[in-house]
């Protein structure tokens, strides 16, 4: 399910990552995501054009959704705490809602927030950013506009970009996240994933898959299901 795209020194680190990403059961949702793991960052950025609206089936789940998301892990942990921001078809009990949202898993609680901004038309490009803004606070932005602030400690050591789906029958349309970058804590500069010092990986929960369109720069990818 998970495989490295670019080998980095440190077999132990790699094995640990594979352990974390593969052995924990992938219950309830399916992912097709690219990971950038084991960095020392204070922010993450990606952008993608709106796809054709996803089709989300209303199955036995009352919380069916199909979402394109950027997750930013916090508290210096690979898995456990994060801020996520993205675009979802399906929001809580209404599968027809097509909206931006953000969510947070902190050391004490979990919460989801609907973002009241116009999504626009198919092909409209939007940027998604989560950045440490000091005082143990991370701010989530869509198109450079703040949508929420989460109280969590730095740094970020993992960023994921990709899709999350409740039901394997949901229809994903092709999307191309691009300009995926992280904010280096030591230099204070934004770096493309390939220059970020992290380990680039992917997780595909069949039948979905992530396809690297430009492995040289990790600029383009897609989530895809026939």
């Amino acid at each position, binding site marked *: 399910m998970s495989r490295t795209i670019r080998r980095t020194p440190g077999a132990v680190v790699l094995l640990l990552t594979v352990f974390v990403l593969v052995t924990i*059961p*992938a219950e309830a949702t399916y992912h097709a995501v690219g990971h950038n793991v084991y960095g020392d960052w204070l922010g993450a950025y990606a952008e993608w054009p709106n796809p054709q609206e996803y089709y989300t089936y209303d199955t036995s789940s009352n919380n069916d959704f199909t979402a394109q998301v950027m997750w930013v892990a916090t508290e210096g942990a690979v*898995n456990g705490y994060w801020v996520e921001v993205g675009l979802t078809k399906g929001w809580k*009990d209404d599968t027809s809602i097509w909206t931006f949202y953000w969510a947070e898993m902190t050391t004490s609680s979990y919460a*989801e*927030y609907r973002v009241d901004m116009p999504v626009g038309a198919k092909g409209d490009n939007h940027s998604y950013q989560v950045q440490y803004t000091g005082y143990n606070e991370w701010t989530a932005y869509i198109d450079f506009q703040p949508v929420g*602030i989460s109280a969590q400690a730095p740094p970020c050591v993992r960023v994921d970009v990709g899709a999350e789906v409740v039901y394997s029958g949901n229809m994903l349309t092709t999307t191309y996240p691009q300009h995926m970058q992280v904010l280096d804590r030591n230099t204070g500069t934004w770096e493309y994933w390939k220059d970020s010092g992290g380990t680039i990986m992917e997780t595909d929960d069949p039948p979905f898959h992530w396809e690297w369109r430009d492995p040289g720069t990790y600029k383009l990818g897609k989530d895809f299901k026939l």
Partner: protein
Amino acid sequence: MRIFNWKPSVVLFVGLAVALVGVGVGGAASHQAMLPMPKGTPDDAVLLEPSDLDLPEASGGPYLPPDRVRGIALNVAASYTAKNDVTIEAVVLTTHGKLIEQGVFSPSFSVGESREVYLVTLRGSFIFTRRLAGHPPFEADYINIEIDASTGIDLATGTSKATQSEEVLAALNIASGTE
């Protein structure tokens, strides 16, 4: 009167050190517009501040009746559970800002702080399925739902236990007659 008999170079060094510490501790948060922007973004792109946003503030009413709010909350709660064990514990008319002040929700910017909202607290067996890949779904037996008191839009759902305190509920309440 001189308290310290320091040489000018020492004073300069100390001043510089204090300034650097100030930048390191507080500077990152002082102004988002000063933060570096990602590569490839427009030259004039800046990160906006919450104060730059034009958000819906207090409507003054009319507000949805509590029974309607209960129905909305139960529909939202049903999306997090397959069981039929959900009970409503409290319905409180409050403001978006008070929910943030009391630690029920984090700051979010779909409405302004003065906007009137309902807080509904519920008990049950809830599962949140949105998650970081590899992380198990988050389970909770207690949730809070924030609903815009004028439009009925559910703004947020979370698992803070702050609202289990009667003092917090009292501090949130901006109207008599709520439950």
